[in-house]
C-alpha cells in the first residue's frame, strides 16, 4: 500500500541516461510491503519494508488504494 506522497522529484533513470541533462519530475511515494507480500509464505514474521518508489515504477491494481 502507498503510505505517503513525498512530492515530485527527478526520475533518476532519466538523469542517468541523459547524464544529468534532463530532469523529469515525477511523483514519489512511500510504498509499504508486508513480509508475506515481499517474500511469500505466511505473514507471521510481523514486519514490513517501506520502499520509496517513483510513480512509473508502480502498476495500478484494483486492490491497492491510496490511503
Amino acid at each position, binding site marked *: 500500500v502507498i503510505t505517503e506522497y513525498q512530492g515530485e522529484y527527478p526520475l533518476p533513470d532519466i538523469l542517468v541516461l541523459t547524464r544529468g541533462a534532463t530532469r523529469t519530475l515525477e511523483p514519489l511515494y512511500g510504498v509499504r510491503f508486508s513480509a508475506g507480500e515481499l517474500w511469500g509464505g505466511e505473514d507471521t514474521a*510481523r514486519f514490513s519494508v*517501506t520502499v520509496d518508489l517513483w510513480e512509473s515504477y508502480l502498476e495500478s491494481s484494483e486492490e491497492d488504494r491510496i490511503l
Partner: protein
Amino acid sequence: VTDIHGHAGSATADRVKRVEAAVVAAGLTTEADLDRVVEVLAAQASPRQGARVVARAWSDPGFAQRLFADANTAIEELGLSMRAGPAPVRLKAVANSESVHNVVVCTLCSCYPVSLLGPPPTWYKDPAYRSRVVREPREVLAEFGTQLAPETEIRVWDSSAETRYLVVPLRPSGTESLDEPTLADLVTRNGLIGTAVV
C-alpha cells in the same frame, strides 16, 4: 577532498582522487566547492545532532508533533539543516512505540541523514546488513543485542530515493526528571538507525 569515510584503505582513497580529478576536469564542480561541502559536514555532522533532536522531541510534545509532520523545518529550531550536504534531501522522523520498532537501511548503498548521524558505520554499508535486514530484521536486530518481543511489529525503511529516515527511540522509563542535554547523552547512533533501543 578529505576522506570523510575515515576507514577507507589506500585503494579507495586512490579511486576517490581519480574520480575527483575527473569531475573537476569535466567542469562539474571545483576543488573549492568540494572542500566547502566536506568542511561543513565534518564540522557539524555527528550522532550528537540526531540525539539533540530526539531529546527535544522527548521533552517538548509540540516539537515532536512538528518533527513528525515536517522534519526538515522542525530541526531548524535546533539550528540544524538538511541543506548542509551536497544536495538538499527530505528528512522523515519515525517514532518507536510500545508496539512498533523502526529500523533504517539503504539497500542500494549507504544513504542516511549524515548531518544528524555522522559518517555511516562500516556495517551499515555492508551488503550483509543491507540484504538481511529487509529479509529477517528480527534476527539481525537480535545479533545487535536488540531482542524485541515477538508481538512487536518491525518497520524497515529503505532509503531508496530522496528521503532520509531518522528513528526516534522510545524514551526510557525513569528519565522523567532529566533535562535535554542529559537525555541526549542516552541516545546512541545505533538507536537513531534503529539497530538498538535506548
